[in-house]
């Protein structure tokens, strides 16, 4: 495994009884990148992250985190990792400060308490109250602080902004970008597409325990199905356009305007349009959300 790789899984499999949560997940995350792990609830995001930390044991496949096999040396992996669980639960009888100090003790008191205060201030978190008296959003802030406070090399965050208001969500995005700028790798799962689009440099889409796509968000958009509106200066026969590979005619209006669907690259269509008197041309750029849904719909159809 290259030193540039922060985490890698190959053929990762995990079942819970008859439920196959992971069916051979292949992932590679480079050091210093922000990697989004996208999928709906139950797709296998949390299971993947928990395998990376040796909280659960995979049934098959290979896992390396920062070059280490988590099953062989889980303590070494965890010492260099910050983790935020998707379903964050804290000891309700502790104060915020007590909980953070306890986590710091487990890390051998390695956190810089000045940095902890900075994080707490930026997330507008009070250290004094008991965990049981905190709102869900404030508990999530405690989770974010404990994940970041020891400046880990790798951040494994399961739905990091769950329950946070938009202002705090943006503050967390800033903190993660700052961590990345300091050299950390950020691997986060989410089912919020806008979050992944905002934050991630690369994205993997997981569906029913299998990675169905892995690319940069912009690549995903360019690979997707697009819709094109073309208006001509005069009536034309658009048949030749539909002969271009990947192009489908959706509708036409008196041969003066056509609505086309293009799958794949635009090059063929643009060259074909050169033979026509085009007065207007418009491409509907799909959002990551549409792409995400398209993956799911197309896979569902395949299964049907």
């Amino acid at each position, binding site marked *: 495994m290259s030193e540039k790789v922060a985490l890698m899984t190959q053929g990762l499999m995990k079942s*819970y*009884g*008859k*439920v*196959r*949560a992971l069916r051979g997940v292949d992932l590679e995350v480079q050091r210093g990148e922000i990697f989004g792990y996208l999928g709906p609830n*139950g797709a296998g995001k*949390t*299971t993947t992250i*928990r395998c990376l*930390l040796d*909280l*659960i*044991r995979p049934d098959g496949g290979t896992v390396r985190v920062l070059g280490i096999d988590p099953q062989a040396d*889980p*303590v*070494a992996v*965890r*010492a260099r*990792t910050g*983790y935020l*669980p998707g*379903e*964050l*639960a*804290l*000891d309700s*009888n502790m104060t915020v400060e007590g909980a953070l100090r*306890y*986590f710091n*003790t*487990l*890390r*051998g008191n390695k956190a810089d308490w000045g940095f902890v205060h900075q994080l707490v201030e930026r997330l507008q978190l009070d250290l004094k109250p008991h965990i049981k008296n905190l709102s869900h959003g404030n508990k999530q802030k405690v*989770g974010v602080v*404990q994940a970041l406070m020891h400046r880990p090399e790798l951040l494994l965050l399961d739905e990091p902004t769950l329950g946070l208001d938009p202002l705090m969500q943006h503050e967390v995005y800033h903190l993660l970008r700052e961590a990345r700028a300091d050299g950390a790798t950020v691997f986060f799962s989410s089912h919020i597409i806008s979050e992944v689009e905002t934050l991630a440099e690369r994205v993997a889409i997981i569906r*029913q325990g299998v990675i169905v796509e892995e690319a940069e968000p912009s690549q995903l958009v360019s690979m997707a199905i697009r819709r094109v509106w073309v208006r001509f200066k005069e009536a034309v026969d658009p048949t030749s356009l539909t002969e271009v590979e990947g192009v489908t005619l959706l509708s036409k209006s008196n041969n003066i305007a056509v609505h086309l669907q293009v799958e794949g690259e635009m090059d063929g269509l643009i060259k074909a349009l050169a033979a026509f008197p085009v007065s207007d041309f418009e491409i509907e750029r799909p959002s990551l959300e549409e792409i995400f849904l398209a993956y799911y719909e197309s896979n569902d159809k395949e299964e049907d």
Partner: protein
Amino acid sequence: MFAEFKHTMRRLRGQMIGWGIGLALYVVLMVSFYSSVARMGNLYEELLKFYPKEMMGFFSSIREINTPQGYLDIYYFNYMTVILGIFVVGACASLLVGDEEKGVLDLVMAHPVSRTALFWGRLLGFVTATAVILLVSWLSWVIPSGRSGLELTWIKFLQPFLPLFAELLLFGTVALLLSMVLPSGRMAGMTTGGLLIANYLLIGLANINQDLKPIVKYTPLHYYQGGYAVSGLKWGWLAGLLAVSAIFAVLAWWRFQRRDIRVGGEGGWRLPALPFRRRAGAGREA
């Protein structure tokens, strides 16, 4: 490991204070009654003739109520395995699984602490908490005893606490092991508590029905000396109880090393599928 030990002690401090003070008050009261009871020796013997034999089976030491060992047994050690058993079974059944079921363990174990350190740190915390409760009880017997006629040295007072401690460890480690293999901590606690009470009843019944004697020798409470340890400790029994506790603890640790840490919705195992359950869960795949 020390961090987890400290954390466990902090969490059990309420239990230590509650059980410690409660038992101390009870013991001080019992110590103060001893001189009166000892003076009633002949009267008690007359009274015991009218006791039903079933009751005598469970509280056979009542015949020696006017002796220090009989008095200690009947008013403390006879049933303290059950009373303190409630604490140890509850504490051990939830020592790790309690946090797991709340989802707290997931985050704790994501820190650089090995499963071994977590397990033994917490178990050591529990053992220390139990020892502290017993220590308070022991002091409550020792300190006021001089004025009540309970003429025993502090070592003699200590002797029956050792088998009690060993029995509590044994049932505690059983609860811990069961919490590692059964679907929930509550089920582990209930099962161990049931076993403890069943054992206690069996010992009493075996004193009435001789046919039960051969069975009883395979149960842990058969090797419990109670207050009679004042007259001399059976070291073999004590070592045996501690050894069996150690075996259960090692088995629980071995199981903890190998199992998945569960969180909500991630498939803690269920009881074996019965035909109707199997039908309901058929074809599930996600």
